């Protein structure tokens, strides 16, 4: 469990993270989304006690990270995958970190097996591909068998097989009851993997919601085609819905459900040729939310529209 309350980080005049509060509960994968420079990595570094917040606080399992003497058994983290000494072997990289937290050699062997690097354990990590470095970084995160995992862009540089491996691993870690905090730029990947989302823009919280709530928000769009489109549009507007004419003659309707449109059309004798709920993709919803945050500087409006209810 990670709890951030009013977390802020300023670098001189620049505000990297601004009054950010969120929770990463156990047993779920919480996705961390935001445009480049939104403050995701800064937030992750503050969770790990690497950067000191300007104000606010963040705790892991109820204590600030730096209060732990052997934090690897509490929290495992993958930040930048290639941030390791290139001259050291994969095995020694793991062992140097393991020994500082009282973790055994047998556990080092275990995580090497788990990430599929056993055959190259003796090789210097300087020669590793990005994908191999990612796997080694994940091995470091798993060393202490921690209840909380923080993974910054774990699928970066992985081949399709590696992406599938991460997806399965991350989900199984959450099923075992761990809290998993995962950032990724790959929306399709996030849509499949995450149960919950924390979305930030310009360092501020835009939304903290479950994936289901985000995708089934009030913004659900319904596409309708009818020979009596004009009449239907007026009827829908009378009911408080919005109906926008499309160049191809169809209507894009929001503010009512598909069932209501169907009932309305039957009652008024309007013929429907198409009635389709356009499930917005995570990518669309994300771009709507973060686009507003960037373009209009009004994250609060976005919050009101799609925040948790």
């Amino acid at each position, binding site marked *: *469990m990670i709890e951030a309350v009013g977390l802020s980080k300023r670098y001189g005049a620049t505000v990297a993270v601004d009054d950010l509060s969120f929770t990463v509960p*156990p*047993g779920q994968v919480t996705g961390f989304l935001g445009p480049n420079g939104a403050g995701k990595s800064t937030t992750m*570094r503050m969770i*790990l*006690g*690497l*950067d*000191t917040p300007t104000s606010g606080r963040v705790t892991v*399992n*109820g204590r600030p*990270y*730096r*209060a*732990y*003497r*052997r*934090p*690897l*058994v*509490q*929290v495992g*983290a993958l*930040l*930048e995958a*290639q*941030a*390791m*000494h*290139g*001259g*050291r*072997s994969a095995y*020694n990289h793991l*062992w*140097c*970190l393991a*020994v*500082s*937290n*009282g973790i055994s050699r047998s556990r080092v062997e275990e995580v090497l097996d788990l990430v599929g690097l056993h055959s190259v354990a003796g090789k210097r990590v300087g020669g590793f591909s990005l994908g191999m470095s990612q796997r080694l970084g994940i091995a*470091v995160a*798993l060393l202490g*068998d*921690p*209840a*909380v995992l923080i993974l910054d862009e774990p699928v970066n540089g992985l081949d399709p097989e590696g992406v599938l491996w991460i997806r399965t691993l991350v989900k199984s870690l959450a099923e*075992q*009851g*761990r809290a998993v905090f995962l950032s990724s730029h790959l929306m399709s990947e996030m849509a499949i993997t995450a149960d919950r989302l924390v979305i930030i823009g310009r360092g501020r919280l835009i939304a903290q919601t479950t994936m289901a709530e985000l995708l089934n928000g009030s913004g659900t769009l319904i596409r309708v085609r009818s020979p009596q489109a004009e009449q239907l549009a007026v009827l829908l507007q009378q009911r408080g819905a919005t109906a926008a004419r499309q160049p191809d003659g169809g209507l894009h309707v929001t503010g009512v459900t598909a069932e209501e449109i169907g009932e309305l059309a039957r009652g008024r004798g309007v013929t429907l040729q198409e009635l389709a709920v356009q499930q917005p993709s995570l990518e669309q919803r994300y771009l709507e939310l973060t686009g507003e945050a960037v373009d209009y500087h009004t994250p609060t409006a976005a919050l009101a529209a799609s925040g948790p209810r």
Partner: protein
Amino acid sequence: MTAGAAPAPSDVAEHPRGYAPDVLRSEYWKLRSVPSTPWTLTAAVGSNVVIAVLAAIFIPGHLSAADASSTDAVRLSLAGLHLSQIAFGVLGALVITSEYGTGMVRATFAAVPNRRLVLAAKATVFVVTALVVGTASCFAAYGLFQAFVSGGDLRSSLGDPGVLRAVIGGGLYLSAVGLLGLGLGAILRSSAGTIATLFGLLFVPSLLTSLLPHAWQTTVGGYVPMEAGSQIFIAVHHDSNSLGAWTGFGVFCSYAAAALAIGFLIIDQRDA
């Protein structure tokens, strides 16, 4: 793997073994598991030994009788220190700057949030290694010089006044140079900046003091880092402007201690 939904029990109670010893072990493995360590140590030992042998073979034939009687044979046999101090300084700096340079430091501080303990462990592991390798190579250099030298004027034994202290002092000096590098590295964090600053501090002040008025040279000159530090590996002192062996070495150590102390103070304050 076991499930980890509940917070793990007290992380201290789980490990009866000490916490600081584990951090020391971690730093020991870090030092010995990178190729730069054997490389720099081999270069240091090599220059100490090779220069001692070359000095023993080639220099005596070119010394006049007056030269020979005034030459400090121990200092001559440890002439390689002028080169090997570079290797020790670089190794001391790399102990910490290589972590900042590669980003490894974030993994280190995530594993051990007590950064001062990390720095103390690095300094301890380094200084023990440097004392062993530095002192052994100085004894080897002295022994080889004595074995190869011809002519009685440059012969001495460890029992002669100041000789044992000077040979051991060579190892002490090399270790202190490395600690100065480590302290500067903790402050500056960049390998290139640290190494440039270290050798600027060692070599430049000695050159600048020669430009000062003579009266200042006699007062300030002895406190210049390399001048002060090198007194410990000179067996017989002739220069009245210089500090004594242990006083000079103490002054040199205080520079290293100051750098380490500043590093110690600020390592907790800065973002990694």
